[in-house]
């Protein structure tokens, strides 16, 4: 077959023929222009980073490359041969393997079936069995990403992090010329990320080209060889060696501006605001737990840190009354709240940003403004009637303050990029007038650097207003940068506390259960 012939030739003489060459791509969604003039050139055996702020069009470009959507304009060539995939199936067959940003797993189907999804989609014939990946192979795929789970378990029983690993394992298991990774590390811990990078480097050594999307500069610098930067759907840096560019230059290319990020001064904590006593996650969490006592003061930011599956996210959710618990009570400024009753918690001024933005946060078809006002509808109504313009008046300042982009508050939330959706969830809580406690899970998962700074600023500022802030994040840098102190969570229970300024290595040790002497 010609394709393999060309591949072989390319491998013999790298650099002559691009594994993937994309140019002049444009794509419109109705009135929204997602891509204007995008291009990409990928060398075999190299990792190519694709950068851009939220909504720059990265995921759209990825979907075009793998044939999931069709561009309005532009050319794509694979190994020098002009190509246009009519569907993902052809892309897979040609060795172009996607790992998507928003997981493309099937919650009711087993891990094994999910790992076999590409094969099930592509196979011919009648029986499903031959399309399933052999169990030993599936094990090996999961081992490669360090996941150990029952192959027959429905995926809906896995945590978000575990699901991300399944998605990655599925992609890495395919025979590939080009691997496309759209923010694969957003839900991964440091260790898992390292393991993933190991696999990616091995694939590169075998000649695979890798397209890598991430908002984390450390990762990009650790992995990538070349870089393309998209801004508003245009490639402003077009396939240049990463080494030739400084971080500042990249940021300026992405945003047209600089982002100053430095050590933030945290406010001085005041009186205790949130007091949780004897809080115990139920057996439903699948972990035996010890009761936890947590006190968060006004103006204090407390980080909850733990490995995937440690229960840190669940514990934080319980602090916001967002999940039922086996035992324990919550008190906000002396007022006792029934655990697991969000309505009461909201009334008491407890804000909450869930980890799973799509399933638990967004009202997809509703306007951004209506998403932002969902916790405060009562404020904009009198006698059950909505005051005209009330919510706009109250929320527009927040949306502007958080730099909602594009600033179209009437657009359905589903049409915004991940970072901007996160801003909507944050504004929903910040707008609560007497906000006392704010619990934020994964504050910046999948969020670009500019938005990340904006969100961090907003959290610190909220603390400055006297709000007790709890953050739980798998991004340890974030937890370390923002928290007055870090509570370590292991097996669903508290396992000690670390002060601000604790080094990354020490934190990692504690999370893994190793105690410094």
């Amino acid at each position, binding site marked *: 077959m010609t394709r393999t012939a060309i591949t072989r030739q390319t491998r013999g003489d790298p650099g002559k023929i691009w594994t993937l060459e994309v140019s002049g791509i444009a794509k419109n969604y*109705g009135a929204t222009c997602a891509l204007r003039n995008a291009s990409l050139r990928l060398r075999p055996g190299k990792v190519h980073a694709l950068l851009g702020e939220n909504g720059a069009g990265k995921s759209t470009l990825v979907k075009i490359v793998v044939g999931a*959507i*069709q561009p309005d304009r532009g050319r794509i060539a694979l190994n020098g041969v002009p190509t246009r995939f009519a569907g993902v199936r052809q892309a897979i067959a040609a060795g172009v393997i996607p790992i998507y940003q928003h997981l493309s797993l099937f919650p009711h189907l087993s891990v094994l079936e999910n790992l076999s999804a590409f094969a099930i989609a592509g196979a011919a014939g009648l029986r499903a069995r031959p399309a399933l990946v052999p169990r030993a192979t599936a094990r090996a795929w999961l081992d490669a990403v360090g996941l150990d789970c029952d192959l027959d378990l429905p995926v809906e029983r896995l945590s978000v992090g575990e699901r991300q690993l399944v998605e990655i394992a599925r992609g890495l298991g395919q025979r590939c010329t080009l691997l496309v990774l759209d923010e694969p590390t957003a839900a991964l811990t440091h260790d898992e990320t390292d393991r993933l990078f190991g696999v990616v480097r091995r694939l590169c050594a075998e000649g695979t080209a890798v397209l890598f999307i991430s908002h984390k500069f450390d990762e990009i610098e650790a992995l990538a060889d070349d870089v393309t930067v998209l801004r*508003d759907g245009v490639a402003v840096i077009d396939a240049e060696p990463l080494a030739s560019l400084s971080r500042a230059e990249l940021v300026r290319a992405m*945003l*047209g*501006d600089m982002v100053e990020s430095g050590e933030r001064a945290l406010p001085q904590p005041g009186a205790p605001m949130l007091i949780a006593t004897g809080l115990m996650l139920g057996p439903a969490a699948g972990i035996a737990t010890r009761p936890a006592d947590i006190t968060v003061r006004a103006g204090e930011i407390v980080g909850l840190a733990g490995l995937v599956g440690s229960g840190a996210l669940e514990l934080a959710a319980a602090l916001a009354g*967002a999940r039922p618990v086996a035992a324990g009570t919550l008190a906000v400024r002396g007022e006792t709240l029934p655990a697991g009753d*969000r*309505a009461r*918690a*909201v*009334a008491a001024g407890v804000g*909450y940003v*869930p980890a799973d933005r799509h*399933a*638990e*946060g*967004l*009202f*997809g*078809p*509703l*306007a951004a403004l*209506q998403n932002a006002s*969902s*916790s405060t*509808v*009562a404020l*904009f*109504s009198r006698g*059950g*009637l*909505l005051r*005209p313009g009330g919510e706009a008046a109250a929320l*527009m300042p927040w949306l502007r303050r958080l*730099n909602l*982009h*594009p*600033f*179209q*508050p*009437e*657009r*359905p939330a*589903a*049409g915004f990029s991940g970072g901007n959706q996160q801003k909507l969830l944050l504004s*929903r809580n910040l707008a609560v007038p007497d906000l006392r406690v704010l619990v934020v899970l994964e504050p910046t998962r999948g969020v670009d650097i*500019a938005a990340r700074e904006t969100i961090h600023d907003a959290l610190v500022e909220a603390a400055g207003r006297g709000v007790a802030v709890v953050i739980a994040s798998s991004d340890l840098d974030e937890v370390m940068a923002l928290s007055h102190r870090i509570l370590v969570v292991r097996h669903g229970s508290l396992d000690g506390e670390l002060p601000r300024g604790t080094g990354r290595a020490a934190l990692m040790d504690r999370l893994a259960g190793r105690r410094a002497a």
Partner: protein
Amino acid sequence: MMALTGARPRRFSGRLNPPAAVWVVLLLFCVFALAVPRFASAGNLENLLRVGSILGIAACGQTIVLILGGIEFSFGASAALASVVTVLALPSAGVAGGFAAGAAAVLLVGLVNGTLVARFSLPPFLVTLGMLMVAGGGAAVLAGGLPIDAPPSDAFSWPARGRVVGIPVPILAAAASFVLLHLLLAHTRAGRLWYLVGANGTAARLSGITVWRSVLAGYLLAGAFCALAAVILTSRVASGQPGLAPNLPFETIAACAVGGIPLAGGQGRAVQTLCGVLVIAMLNNAVVLLNLPVAYQQLMIAAVILGAVMLQQAPRLLLLLPVRPARQSEEDRS
């Protein structure tokens, strides 16, 4: 921080845009007016609207339930129950009392539906199908399976036959219902909560909304609309009919769907329902006026319903754009 390219805040203009179904209504009206004898006469249009009013009022209720992400199959049966209860209560309770009793029966069905869906999280389909059988069976038991006639009186026939300032009461009631529905959906807190709950129940709960209250209120209000429709229907047929309006749930769902409201929840406007109702009402009327054999009548109804829906998608179909999951169809338009 960055230049916001032309992203000035727009007013909520999207909410006021006419839905695609408006064009279907206009087109259909013109076609029928030209092709169907006597269709456009004043008398016929009044007839058409009077009959359509009942469908319209009930469809207002269905709209709320669909926005909540549910579905109502028990409308026809509870209207039947209402008519039987009304007529049975007539001798002892008088006309007003009879209608009140009938309306109360529908509200009771709505309350049971709402409670089971809201508090026990049962699938709306299962619940309302079960209540369809319970209410229908109940009506048949009460009436002994047969229609029972109401003693004729002007008061009793007023809801269906009366006029206020020259306009038939059912048409006024329907107009009021649509205005009320619009106000509820666009301008009240309860309406906003329905959208939020229908779009994402989990997110609604986590936003501090008492989801069950909202759902229960929705089903109750849907019951109230249905009760109004039932009162007019009962007055119209002047009897308690255990088999009163068997197709009401399907016609209301069809009206909403033809108006472009997705069944996935979280979306839908009063004007869309109005358009759908007008399409169905015009169609039912034209089919009789055309006086075709029954087989062709049915083929024509099917063709117009499917055609009306396809026409709204015409831009997409013509451009052969890819089909996206149904729940996003509203986004496509806005």
